């Protein structure tokens, strides 16, 4: 239930129309005011809820991903701002006015004698020709009788483009904006003007508003044409809230969003520029920055541009935004088309050129045609984007669909709002939704970029680990190879020494063996040859299994004894023996046994000899017993050194074993050789 004061039919006399007074409803129904007073807290609560919801909307959108909640919040925001200014009993919403066009160059108060026509407010883009429009609007309102003495009456103008002059009962109350529109935005921010009590008359009061603006034909966007919204008159204290709300919706919120969009766009642009593989990010950045500049035109004060230049810039920016949007949509879907890029870039040049060529009076028509073309291009690109991504990902990308639907819907609502086809609140919310959708898209880009960065970092770490592993493996192999090489070289060198010994020393010794007339020398040379051969064997020979070594010893020693006519006996474990003798041990043991056999053959005059080999406590024990004459004692009480016993003992000691000789003249000799096998590894099976 609102209190509305209707303007009356003007009288033909041309005087300022005498306004019939319709008593405000609250006067007749004081209960209404009381009810309104009672509703006030409710309205307050509604405002709080709106703010919270807006905060929630931005918060959730920043948090990212929760698109559905975000959309709901935006809708809620639009719904909340819809029941705009009126709704309070003390406020008078004036939606009818008498309008009189005047020469833009004229000055002074409203022409008292001019006949006007009746127009409904808001009066958007009044038809006009020429380079400027100047219109006087007259509305009549009542001073509410219930207004307290200390309460101030005020006028709230939500929207006025571009310059405004307000006169109350003929007295100048306020002026705002630049009539010549040499600079600054096209529309004024919401105005809250105090109506001085001294100028008020009891009963009906006449308010004259002069609006100076651009004719529709000379603006690119309907938004920038001369316009006047509905007026609300009421106590200043009650108008403060709607005014603040309108200022927030039309000034602060767009400013904040544009700033956020600029930052997001700039950041994403830099990211996209640095990572050429993600060029869609750079295009998104261009889009966001272009859009924020487009928005900034509406509130950025002091832009030193004449009206026409500003309009030209506006359309050109729009073309650039279209270029960026199309490129972003296509590249995001991994489609790169050189001709599209060139065509869109050419379009950015063609747009201002066409406007300049068409002339300033056809600006709107040309701009409108271009706008339709832009819309078609973007819709086509969006469709292509969805189709391409569906083909690539196998399903429709829900986020992209929702985001495009949101932005498209918001744009459509906003355009409709310019024609007055939708309630002002929804149009304002739609205006805010576009940058919001862009910001969310930007955040999503950053999120994806961050994910990609994380993934690449993870794979880099993995790669690094694999490289480390591979390096360690290579180093290990190299070390092994080097060791092997050293072994090979050593073995080769040993072989060379061995073959030198054989070929040079061996040949010479052999010559001595077979050419010497002295049998003693021949024998010595033969023994030397045998020694040499053993040494070479110790140098190059491989480790030997104990069983094989015993076989060799048996063959040699038994053969030797047989040649000398001595009856030999051999006892050794017959089963497979796993122990392995290093080449050196084998050679040294062979020498000991050979020496012992030599002694028997040469000195003992024995007829029988017995070898006994056994394994006990990890030792190899060999006992050689003969029935010869024994070894005679020397003067000093020690056994004969001439028999090589000392060297036998020495050799046994070298192998950490021992060699004991028991002998008594006439009772034969017993040689006990004990060699530890513990340091000797068991043979591999």
């Amino acid at each position: 239930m609102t209190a509305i004061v209707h303007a009356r039919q003007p009288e033909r006399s041309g005087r300022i129309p005498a306004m019939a007074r319709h008593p405000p409803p609250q006067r007749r129904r004081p209960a209404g005011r009381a009810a309104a007073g009672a509703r006030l807290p409710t309205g307050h609560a509604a405002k709080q809820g709106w703010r919270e919801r807006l905060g929630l909307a931005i918060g959730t959108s920043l948090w990212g991903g929760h698109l559905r909640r975000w959309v709901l919040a935006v809708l809620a925001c639009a719904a909340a701002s819809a029941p705009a200014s009126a709704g309070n009993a003390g406020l008078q919403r004036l939606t009818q006015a008498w309008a009189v066009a005047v020469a833009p160059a004229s000055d002074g108060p409203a022409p008292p004698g001019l006949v006007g026509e009746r127009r409904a407010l808001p009066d958007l883009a009044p038809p006009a020709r020429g380079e400027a429009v100047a219109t006087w609007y007259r509305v009549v309102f009542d001073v509410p009788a219930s207004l307290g003495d200390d309460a101030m009456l005020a006028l709230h103008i939500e929207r006025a483009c571009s310059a405004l002059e307000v006169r109350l009962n003929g007295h100048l109350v306020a002026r705002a904006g630049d009539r010549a529109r040499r600079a600054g935005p096209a529309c004024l921010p919401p105005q809250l003007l105090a109506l001085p009590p001294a100028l008020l008359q009891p009963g009906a009061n006449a308010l004259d508003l002069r609006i100076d603006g651009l004719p529709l034909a000379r603006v690119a966007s309907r938004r920038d044409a001369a316009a006047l919204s509905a007026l609300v008159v009421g106590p200043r204290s009650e108008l403060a809230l709607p005014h603040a709300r309108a200022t927030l919706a039309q000034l602060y919120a767009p400013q904040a969003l544009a700033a956020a969009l600029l930052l997001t766009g700039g950041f994403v642009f830099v990211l996209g520029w640095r990572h050429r593989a993600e060029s869609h990010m750079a295009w998104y950045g261009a889009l966001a920055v272009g859009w924020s500049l487009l928005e900034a035109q509406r509130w950025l004060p002091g832009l030193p541009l004449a009206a026409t230049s500003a309009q030209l810039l506006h359309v050109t920016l729009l073309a650039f935004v279209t270029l960026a949007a199309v490129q972003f949509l296509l590249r995001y879907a991994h489609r790169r088309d050189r001709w599209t890029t060139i065509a869109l870039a050419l379009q950015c040049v063609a747009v201002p050129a066409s406007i300049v060529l068409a002339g300033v009076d056809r600006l709107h028509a040309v701009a409108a045609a271009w706008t339709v073309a832009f819309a078609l291009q973007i819709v086509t690109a969006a469709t292509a984007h969805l189709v391409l991504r569906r083909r690539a990902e196998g399903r429709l990308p829900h986020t992209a669909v929702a985001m495009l639907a949101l932005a498209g819907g918001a744009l459509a609502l906003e355009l409709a709002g310019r024609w007055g086809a939708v309630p002002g609140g929804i149009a304002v919310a739609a205006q805010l939704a576009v940058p919001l959708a862009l910001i969310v898209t930007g955040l999503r880009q950053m999120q994806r970029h961050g994910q990609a960065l994380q993934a690449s970092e993870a794979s880099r770490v993995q790669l690094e680990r694999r490289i480390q592993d591979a390096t360690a493996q290579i180093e290990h192999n190299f070390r092994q190879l080097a060791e092997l090489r050293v072994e090979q070289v050593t073995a080769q060198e040993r072989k060379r020494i061995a073959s030198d010994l054989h070929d040079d020393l061996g040949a010479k010794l052999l010559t001595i063996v077979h050419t010497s007339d002295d049998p003693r020398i021949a024998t010595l040379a033969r023994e030397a040859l045998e020694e040499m051969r053993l040494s070479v064997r110790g140098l190059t020979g491989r480790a030997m299994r104990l069983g094989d070594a015993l076989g060799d010893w048996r063959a040699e020693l038994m053969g030797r004894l047989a040649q000398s006519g001595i009856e030999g006996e051999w006892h050794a474990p017959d089963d497979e023996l796993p122990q392995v003798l290093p080449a050196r041990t084998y050679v040294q043991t062979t020498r000991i046994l050979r020496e012992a056999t030599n002694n028997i053959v040469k000195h003992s005059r024995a007829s029988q000899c017995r070898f006994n080999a056994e394994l006990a406590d990890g030792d190899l024990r060999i006992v050689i017993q003969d029935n010869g004459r024994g070894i005679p004692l020397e003067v000093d009480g020690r056994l004969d050194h001439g028999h090589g016993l000392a060297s036998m003992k020495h050799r046994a000691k070298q192998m950490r074993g021992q060699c004991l000789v028991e002998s008594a003249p006439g009772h034969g000799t017993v040689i006990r050789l004990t060699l530890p096998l513990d340091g000797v590894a068991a043979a591999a099976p």
Partner: protein
Amino acid sequence: MTTHVLLLEDLPEIRSWLRSLVLLVFPGAQVSEAARVHDALELVSALRFDIALVDLGLPDGSGVQVVERLREQQPEAQSVVVTIHDDDEHLFPALQAGAFGYILKEQPREMITEQLHRISQGEPPLSPSIARRVMAHFSVRRKPRIASEMLQQVALTDRETEVLLRVAKGYTLPEIGVQLGLSRHTIADYVKQIYRKLNVSSRAEAALEAQRLGLFGR
């Protein structure tokens, strides 16, 4: 009938000494001497020999080449390795190539003549280490299955393996004869067979190896 003997030895003193030994064992033998592998090979293609005494380490190569050539061109000739190396590393390849026994040069005259005598009678010597190598050669069948059929024909019999096993343990051939209740001649025949089979199987393996290389090296 004169015995034709090839004597390959690079040291002149040893060569003349060996020549005297040969004449002692084979009175009236025709001895052709060579100091190099090259000369010996020429002699092999020019003359027929009954016995060849071949040194292994020669200035222009290994005597194994001569043993091989003899095996190919004069299969009835007996190659005997006369060497200063007593280790199987050096001897085994010569035996595989077809040498029928070996003599260590530094041994006293009597022993060498005795051994030469025995070899010419078909009783080659067999040391424990050579016996082990022969056993390893026949037991380690690491070669692919295609080889088995061919090598089956030259596989050792149980008796031959038994003899080898005992030689490896250090028993002399007469001892083994007593242990197995066999005559000295039977044992000598086993040893001869072992030598022959070693040569045949070695050549078969070499042929298979060459075939394999030919197949895969293409």
